[in-house]
């Protein structure tokens, strides 16, 4: 059924972070006038101002409306975002689930008063108050888009169509040497999720909450998987190229990659395998040390507005967070393709969350492995 981990963690959001008390920061009570400028830290493609492609621009209209002049810095990984936020130079950040908790715990971002953000009302309810964007029921940002790490394969080279992650994890996979995997420590969760389904006796309840034994088993699986892997990917260009050339024929992917590949007439298909999928859900957050908080709130309101949210979702290739955005997309099928608003689909996704010592699945008798362990393990997996 629903690989219901999300339910657990959502209901136990507070428990999941038990023992972790965020710094006591005040949220804004009332909105004032914009300060005239705003420094944005974003994933590439999240804050386009037309400088790369004049047709892709949802920043200029914001600047015109609010008078807040925007500067954008992009980052390549969640961890880069965390370290950049520590410089205190940025007002708002688009944080994925594997960054957000760290930002909250480190005091880099402050609670957000969603009442001051009119468009927040239209955000899908199933994205609100989740463990990666809230603590103890207090939202720390505005959900903005989400997507899944799907299984993609070349239909001409992979038959029958796979329904399980087994094709990328099983030592006997016929696609040895043509498997691809995501190049980040967070990918350990994908393997844990696979073990959760295939090795129930390990007792994994949440792929982001692994005790020592579970972690070792997961890492072993990944080490064995390495013999199958042709390459690890981290940028979408590499992935599309690998599938186009045939260097990779099966592996984890994003919907947008599948779309581009299909657009280039590469015979690929994607699916949500039986074991479920991991995914991301991004949240715009506000720096605790920001001097431009009013502009920050205005930005958060703008970016989840139907038009902007639709533009981002289409350009970046993900599901918008605003239910009204689907009406604004250029490609009318966009929301269908990306399963936007499909709560059941969304519930199948194990959204990226930072693993910490306090087990996120609520266990208190053991210590879980934290993200720095995951990073070191990732280095060892790749060898």
């Amino acid at each position, binding site marked *: 059924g629903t690989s219901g981990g999300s339910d657990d963690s959502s209901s136990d959001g507070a428990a999941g972070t038990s023992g972790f008390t965020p710094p006591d920061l005040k949220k804004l009570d009332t909105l004032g006038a914009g300060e005239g400028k705003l420094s944005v830290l974003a994933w590439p493609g999240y804050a386009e101002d037309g400088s*790369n492609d004049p047709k892709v621009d949802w920043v200029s209209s914001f600047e015109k409306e609010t008078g807040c002049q925007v500067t954008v810095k992009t980052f*390549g990984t969640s961890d880069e975002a965390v370290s*950049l936020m520590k410089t205190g*130079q940025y007002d708002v950040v688009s944080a994925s689930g594997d960054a957000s908790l760290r930002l909250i715990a480190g005091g880099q971002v402050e609670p957000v008063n969603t009442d001051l953000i009119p468009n927040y009302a239209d955000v899908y309810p199933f994205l609100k108050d989740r463990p990666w964007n809230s603590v103890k029921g207090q939202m720390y940002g505005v959900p903005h888009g989400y997507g899944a790490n799907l299984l993609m394969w070349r239909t001409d080279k992979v038959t029958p169509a796979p329904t399980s992650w087994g094709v990328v994890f099983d030592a006997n996979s016929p696609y040895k040497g043509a498997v691809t995997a995501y190049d980040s420590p967070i990918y350990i969760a994908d393997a844990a999720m696979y073990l959760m389904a295939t090795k129930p006796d390990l007792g994994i309840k949440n792929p982001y909450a692994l005790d020592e034994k579970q972690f070792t088993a997961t890492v072993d699986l990944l080490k064995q998987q390495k013999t199958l892997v042709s390459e690890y990917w981290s940028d979408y*260009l590499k992935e599309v*190229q690998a599938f186009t050339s045939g260097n990779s024929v099966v592996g984890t992917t994003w919907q947008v990659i599948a779309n581009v590949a299909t657009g280039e007439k590469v015979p690929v298909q994607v699916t949500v395998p039986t074991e479920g999928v991991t995914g991301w859900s991004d949240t715009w957050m506000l720096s605790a040390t920001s001097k431009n908080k009013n502009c920050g709130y205005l930005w958060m309101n703008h970016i989840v507005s139907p038009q902007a949210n639709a533009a981002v979702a289409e350009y970046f290739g993900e599901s918008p967070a605003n239910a009204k955005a689907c009406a604004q997309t250029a490609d009318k099928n966009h929301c269908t393709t990306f399963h936007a608003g499909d709560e059941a689909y969304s519930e199948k996704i194990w959204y990226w969350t930072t693993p910490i010592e306090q087990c996120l699945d609520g266990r208190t008798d053991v210590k879980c492995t934290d993200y720095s362990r995951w990073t070191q393990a990732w280095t060892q997996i790749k060898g």
Partner: protein
Amino acid sequence: MTISGPTRMVLRILTIVILAFIYIPLLLVLVNSFNVNKTFAWPPRDFTLEWWRRAAESQGALDALWVSVRVGLVATVIALVLGTMIAFALQRFSFYGRDSVSLLVILPIALPGIVTGIALNNAFRTIFGFELGFGTIVIAHATFCIVTVFNNVIARLRRTGVHLEQASADLGASGFTTFRLVTFPLIRSALLAGGLLAFALSFDEIIVTTFTAGANQQTLPIWIFNNLFRPNQAPIVNVVAAALIVFSVIPVWLAQKLSGDAEPLGAGR
């Protein structure tokens, strides 16, 4: 004359093969800038001018190019000044620790870029409390560019010796006049060669830049790096690179011409 005919032939063929090795990838970049495929799959299905048109409109690429040029120029000027000073100090004086100084000059280029990058990043933020930005990129680039200027200038100084400067002093010119009228004209082409290499080094640097660039400055390599991650932008990167290759002929040729005499660029190194 003493290299025998067959050897010359072998060398000529090898040179052609090596030139092919150097230019085939560049040619590929050029062809790919016309490739309709958004991820420049090979072989191209079809060709298009779309990417060139889009690149021409890309304000981001132009801005980044402008940042790179400015960074390169300022870093080169600093490297020229500092590199020349060290070259003079090492060539014209003997002092304790001369060897250490020459080691110090090559250290920034000899140590891996990532080490220099995180060391400077750490120092800028935690020790000096600088905000990462244009200035920090320039400082970082100038640091590892000093060596190219230094190498060129010291080689020239070694060759010209002190006689001409002494002749100038002998004829009544004070230190500064001598530098202006004699020393500087003599090392000018070495400065040009060193400066050109320094600029090229700075212009294509990405690793150190990644760690020292602030939010608002994208150098061209960083822009390229970021755009490889954007849907629909990757082909434009090929266009930018192809354009760079084509237009770089101008400064290189110009510098060759300006350096005058038979002294080819880089020979001073």
